[in-house]
């Protein structure tokens, strides 16, 4: 995760918010992976289960 964490937070960010910033990025990674998986898999799944209309 170190490559993703990166030095992107504001220099004056208090330490406790710096920790928050890192965790926000990790949650964003989770959401990103979730949305990509959903985007790739949802329609094939729907068609396999319910067919065409």
């Amino acid at each position, binding site marked *: 995760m170190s490559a993703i964490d990166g030095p992107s937070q504001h*220099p004056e960010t208090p330490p406790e918010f710096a920790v928050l910033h890192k965790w926000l990025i990790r949650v964003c990674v989770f*959401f990103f992976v979730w949305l990509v998986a959903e985007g*790739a898999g949802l329609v094939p799944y729907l068609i396999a289960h319910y067919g065409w209309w």
Partner: protein
Amino acid sequence: MSFTIERPRLRRGAPGGAPGGPSAPTTVAEQLAQRGDKLFFIGCLVCGTWILGLIGAPILIYGLYLLRQAEKQGASIRPWSITIVGGLLLVDASVNFMAWSLDMFAHNTAIGRTLWIDYGRMVDGGYANFYNTGAVGGVSVTPEKAIQFASCWLVMPMKIAGAWYLLKMRRTGLQWSILANWLYFCLWASYTVAMSLDFPVRFGSSSLGVLGFWLIGGIPFTGPVVVLPFLYTVNKELFTE
């Protein structure tokens, strides 16, 4: 606490480039980075269409791979956190723009009906019951249609443009992403209330029920709750005027 930050070159108007114009890549690594960036952007948008998601995901992953290779070869690329957040914004906005536009404009096509009626059977029954019977076609749940109009015509194009400039490391992109995400947050709040009020006829008649709301509708759409604090704590000096 202080950081020394080298400004990334993947942006318009970089030092050495034409003022306000794109800086031409000078090395093989930079060319690779530019190509990877382009594929990443296209992959995110295609992935969010849902219909072409199976094609979009590999393009997106290949774009990320090329960016990683370019970084290893010495290209100066933007922080990965910005790439991930920009990608999240793009895929999310594309789902709410392109996929939802199929319900708005293509509700009479086989692909539009297949996607949304099947989605209704699994997740939100509002799309399966009385589909295409309203005044403007598509989903017949009135609040859903209203939020769909606000998303497809206003907020999501704004969010895509903001994310594009965010990925270009422009200050405009940061500001518009913040604005668009606040609007998205308001839409999400309205959407949650609308779904809750119509819960029995919507999620009560779908296969997944309340689980479907959380898996598809609830969790991914809470993106702005996470993205907004990130955008407020990010170093603005990374972005050029």
